[in-house]
């Protein structure tokens, strides 16, 4: 590690201060939110950044605003607080489940939304597919100003984001849709999911699907939407068995990643069952 003029961790009191500190540190600097990913760098044999800027005390970072037509989630909101805040909101049950069933209780109390979305090397992040189905947008701040972009665009750019930038908040529109999050850990709980299928579905009065959003996480390196399945679901009434059949027909478009926990074929092979479970949770 090259010695840095800055302390290994500086805890910033405000957003402005954090952005300034990050700008000063340039390529040496990096944000530290809950630390649940960063602190495990030695186990991954990765070097830690020389000068972290801690976000835990940044005023307003932990805010959750639930409005009638949209929600705003601060980057510093922990998984536990997110699950708690969304507990009774019907259209955001998928996101609530993603936050409330990830990891374990102590990690959920520390790990943040910002950390979950910003960890480029982490394929199994639960919140990413859940927010993709909500067509969420993220706000990225730097000293130069604030930029808002879709989560999808952010995921594509995330690995090459310039230093000095912070994800400050997540915006998601509310609707009459219902959402669900089907994750598959290898044990009952406590593992990273080997595959995730999140779903948000809007139906008309007759129960026919007018809009479907499906996202798949942990199967490939980065979570993504599954437009072909969305199309297959749209039109008829929601039905678990036909969702499973459609997913079986379409799953071939995924190229499962090999991992120590599971082989690539397995991640793809379980997608139909996850599609069925997600639909069943919506019925």
């Amino acid at each position, binding site marked *: 590690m090259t010695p840095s003029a800055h302390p290994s961790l500086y805890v910033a009191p405000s957003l402005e201060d954090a952005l300034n500190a990050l700008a000063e540190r340039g390529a040496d600097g990096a944000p530290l939110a809950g630390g649940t990913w960063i602190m495990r760098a030695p*186990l991954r044999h990765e070097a830690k950044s020389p000068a972290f800027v801690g976000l835990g005390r940044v005023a307003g970072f932990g805010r959750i605003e639930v409005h009638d037509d949209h929600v705003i989630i601060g980057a510093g909101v922990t998984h536990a607080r997110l699950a708690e805040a969304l507990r009774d909101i019907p259209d955001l049950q998928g996101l609530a489940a993603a936050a409330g069933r990830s990891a374990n209780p102590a990690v959920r109390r520390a790990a943040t939304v910002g950390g979950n979305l910003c960890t480029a090397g982490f394929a199994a992040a639960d919140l990413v597919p859940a927010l993709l189905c909500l067509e969420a947008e993220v706000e990225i701040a730097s000293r130069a100003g604030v930029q808002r972009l879709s989560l999808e665009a952010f995921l594509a750019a995330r690995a090459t984001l310039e230093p000095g930038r912070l994800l400050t908040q997540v915006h998601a529109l509310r609707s009459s849709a219902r959402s669900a999050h089907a994750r598959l850990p*290898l*044990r009952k709980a406590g593992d990273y999911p080997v595959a995730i299928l999140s779903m948000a579905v809007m139906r008309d009065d007759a129960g026919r699907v007018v809009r479907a959003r499906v996202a798949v996480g942990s199967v490939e390196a980065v979570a993504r939407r599954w437009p072909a399945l969305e199309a297959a679901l749209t039109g008829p009434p929601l039905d678990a068995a036909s969702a499973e059949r459609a997913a079986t027909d379409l799953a071939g478009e995924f190229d499962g990643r090999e991992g120590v*926990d*599971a082989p690539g*074929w*397995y991640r793809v092979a379980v997608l*139909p069952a996850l599609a069925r479970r997600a639909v069943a949770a919506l019925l």
Partner: protein
Amino acid sequence: MTVDAVMEFRRRDARDKLTGRTRYTIDRAAPGMLHAAVLRAEVASGRLVTVDTSKAAALPGVRAVATAADAPGRFGIGVSDHSLFADGQVRYVGEPLAAVAADTPEQAQAALAAIEVAIEPLPAVVTMAEALAPGAPLVHPDWQDYEVLPVGGARAGNVAWEATVVRGDVDAAFARPDVTVVESTFRVGRQNHMAFEPRAVVARYEEDRFHIETSTQVPWTIRNATARFLGVPASQVRVTVPPVGGAFGLKFDVAIEPFAALLAKKSGRAVRLVNSREEEMLTCLFRENAEILIRSAVTSEGEIAGREAVVLMDCGAHGGEQIFLTTMTAHTLGGNYKLGAVRLATRAVYTNTPPNGAFRACNGVYNTFALERHTDEIAAAIGMDPLELRRRTVLGDGDLGATGQVFEGDVLRPMLDRMEALRARTTPHEVDDGRLYGRATTVGTWFVFTGPSAATVNMNADGSATLVTSGVEIGSGSMMQGLPQIVAATLGIRPEDVIVRQADTDAAGYDVGVGGGRQTTSLGAASLAAAQDVRAKLLAFAAQLLEATPDDLVMANGRIEIAGPNGKGFTIAEVAARAQAALGPIGGTGAATRTGVPSMPGCVAGHFIDAIDIPVFAVHDCEVAVDRDTGHVEVLNYRVVQDVGRALNRSAIGGQIQGGVVQGLGYALHEEVSIDALGHIRQCGFETYRVPLAGDVVPVEVDLFEGAPSLGPLGIKGAGEVPILNVGATVACAVANATGRRVQELPLTPPRILSLLLGREPDLALPHIQPAFADNLLRPHGPEV
């Protein structure tokens, strides 16, 4: 005299453990202590060209550096094939190359980084198939030069040890016209103990002796092995053992102690060395991976006319415990059932992978898996109910074991009946939720690893007694419950009043170690003898005081009295105090070793024990539900009927059974170790190595079977090892019944099960096991010539 040591006595260490006050080895420090670290090889095989420590030694804070030149000796349980540091050749990823001690852990790490190492890579054998291939590179090219402790095992090249059993004419049995021949193959992966406390040591060099404080099950092995590695007399090494934070067999062999000892001597300071979790994962002395072919000739009535099997055990880069364990095939794979003729070959195979070791019930676990799945395949082949087949063929009174030992008493059959009664108490779980349901009952045979133990009991003038042994408290509670109970019951005092000395090789006599279910049996036998010695002395003295004969006296409830109502007497404290004044302090010593049950001459070759002194039987039963879409197995209920001889403390045994079964569920379902083509272990921590969590387990229903014959003290048997024995077997048989698929491998992870269900899994072929039994042997069965 009969001693009734049955109690519900709670362990005295619980309170400190619950309040964080217990100081394990990892919690210990000494003034001026240095921090050590070990440099480990990153390739599986190679010629070690240079290990240059000169730059590292010059770094700030570095106080001592040690390399192969400092540790000339070799050690091994059967074959002395283990050098402390790689000796010119690197044999596995993780093999130690050098060790350093510095003022801070960071300085020690910096020193490791500054050591210059050159290794010329050599081809590696990572699997047993590679190791046994013709012309395979040898893991130990100099295998012929190693000292071999016991004689009789065939060895050559990558076969570290070969043990054989032959009883009767197996060829004739297979040639009988009335038999069906059933053949099965199996493979299992490694299992990591994941003991919560890693291997840890604090070593000092004082008054020309080493004092090693370590987290171990085997203080005397540490003493003797350290001395051998360092080339010093064993009397120069003292080992003491604080409470151990979990062991399960992991700490049944020497580990990192000699590094700390060496560095302490070189630096003149106390040295602390603690394995990181990653080091624990990579060098854990796993339960070995194994491959098994088993073939039986069975009549339509279920009589097993002949059985033959070949078991390959991967010992990794050193023979270690596996060399001894080749013996145990005879008593596990060759156990459970009445056999006509039998022949078994077990080969410990060297590979360029981290060495394996002992783990709770060792190879018994997978041999039982193989045997019980094979038994179910036999039942299917002859069209008999699997339970009925077991009822007809399990070992009973007077039956011969594989090595010709005669079993006493009907144990397994009544245990099967008890299991049926236990099962009848709960209703089956099956519901129509799309999952596949299955159930199975299996039987298992294990043993108590007896052998030398010593104990001293000192009677104190205040009425308490001090028990001094080399026994270690590893969590099972035997030092906290069983042993003080035995001493207390013998002396008529409360178990709370028995002080148990922590293991110290300077204070207590030799002991094989805590493991193999031997704590309460071997140490118990020695402690019982020592307490009886004290009892006899106290009674003789009290008889004088009371003008009676010792036979007239009772010793109970803290008093020695003349038998009968209102008998005159004294408190034991009073007798002890008076005896101390008149004769000097009262103490007693006791010793125990294996009694030696005979086998049939000529049956075994290369075996460390020919027969088992104290067999232990187990019957397990469980119900599972298998998710056909994802391959997840849920264990719905689990039942154990366990042969305990006599239960001294039912609560303590119950705790061991629940814990052992859950470790077995991990082995059966979750805990996977994979080794890549370069010899790296891929699971490096709790994220990737998945042990059961609270949500994955069920409460085990337990029925303790008492009264089976036992040579153990007070009729007891070891109870802590055996609970894991047939869990892999039971879950595998239940999953096979649920899915109708041939289960041949463990662990049954969701991907493996889904693969079976989807027909992706080809039938397991083991081409490196020869079809003809004799072609697998280095030399024909028989004594070394």
